[in-house]
């Protein structure tokens, strides 16, 4: 476990020094919210259905930006080689990178939420615990496969272009279930109203974190 935290810590320190990934993810999410605000004609009251979809479009696009950078960073100066040379099991490297990515994306989400309340006049704070749980589950699902494909895309000719193509078709169940669940929470129904989506999300997270950790070694070794 110490080894995993070391990898997470390494990513956090790199990020704290430059702050470039975090800033770009945050600004990008913000711009998407503004675009949707324009598209809906600046009307303050939109339905929970539309607002949860807007929220997840902003989150997944911002998350994509961060994921694309995650392993491109390791390619610079061949840092990946150093990471692989450490006496650590490959699946632990995956876990470290994944948890780091989850953290970054989750922090961006937490900061974007109040602004979302500001723009769309939807009160999210009364349902805060269930909303945070939904965000966490959706983020883990998105990042689990995302981290794996980030390592893959960084090694191909098309690079960052390939990542959204690989990732979005796979995470359709995650995004669809998260939107459904967020909608249930925002409309005051609570998690139980969309228990089907909750189950899909939990199952997806467990299965894909495990599978990705197992197959990760085939991606990074040459």
């Amino acid at each position, binding site marked *: 476990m110490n080894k995993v935290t070391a990898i997470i810590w390494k990513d956090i320190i790199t990020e704290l020094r430059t702050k470039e990934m975090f800033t770009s993810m945050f600004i990008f999410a913000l711009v998407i919210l503004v675009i949707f605000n324009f598209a809906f004609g600046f009307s303050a009251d939109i339905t929970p259905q539309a607002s949860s979809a807007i929220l997840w479009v902003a989150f997944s696009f911002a998350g994509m930006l961060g994921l694309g950078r995650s392993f491109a960073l390791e390619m610079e100066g061949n840092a990946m080689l150093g990471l692989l040379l450490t006496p650590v099991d490959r699946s632990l490297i995956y876990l470290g990178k994944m948890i780091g990515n989850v953290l970054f994306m989750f922090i961006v989400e937490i900061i974007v939420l109040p602004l979302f309340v500001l723009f769309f006049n939807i009160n999210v704070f009364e349902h805060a615990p269930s909303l945070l749980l939904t965000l966490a589950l959706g983020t883990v699902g998105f990042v689990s*496969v995302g981290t*794996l*494909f980030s390592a*893959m895309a960084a*090694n*191909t*000719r*098309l690079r960052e272009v*390939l990542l959204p*193509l*690989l990732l979005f*078709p*796979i995470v*359709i*169940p995650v995004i*669809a*279930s998260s939107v*459904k669940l967020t909608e249930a929470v925002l409309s005051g129904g609570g998690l139980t109203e*969309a228990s*089907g*989506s909750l189950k*899909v999300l939990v*199952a*997806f997270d467990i*299965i*894909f974190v495990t*599978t*990705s950790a197992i*197959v990760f070694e*085939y*991606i990074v070794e*040459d």
Partner: protein
Amino acid sequence: MNILLTLTLLSMGASLYTAFFYAPTEIVMGHVQRIFYFHMGSVWVATVAFTMVFISSIAYLKTQKRNWDILAYTSAELGVLFITLTIISGSIWAKPIWGVWWTWDPQLTATFILWVLYIVYLLLRSSAGSEVRKAKFAAVFAIIAFIDLPFVYISARVMRGVSPIVFGGGGGGIDPKMLVALFASLTAFSLLFVVILKYRYDLEKMSDEVAKLKLSGAS
């Protein structure tokens, strides 16, 4: 090989005959229902092909043998071809029966995502660089994609509520002659799949051989 080819041609003829002349006309849908025999045939082959991609991908990661990779690649190509035929024939059937070319019913949604996923698989292969890396990346993606499919189907079901459409020649009784036509079509499509797969596999083997010869000639 020649025997297989002859058998395939014969079964294709038999399938055409049974589907258009031998099987009776469906009472409600009329002649349009006959497209169903070919629809079922192609969806069956596509299912077999994608399952083969999954199994060969696991086998490749385990053994690192090029043969498994060729099998996965050629099956994926054929799977994409037959799933495209499935979607086209399904749309032609749906227009007169449902009144629309397409609807976001869970089954159709899952089929559509399936189609996208394996096109991305082929795209990944063409962009991955070296042969070994290409094979590994493709195998990993194929495994993830195959496990993802049940999730796509279930989440689409949860989103839309349960699908009201019963697929097939009717839940109650199906005319035995229709069954014969269906069986003939499944046989013909399966044999066709095996034949194309065989040719495609040999072709890949030959292109490997040519690449090897070029390399030895250069040195």
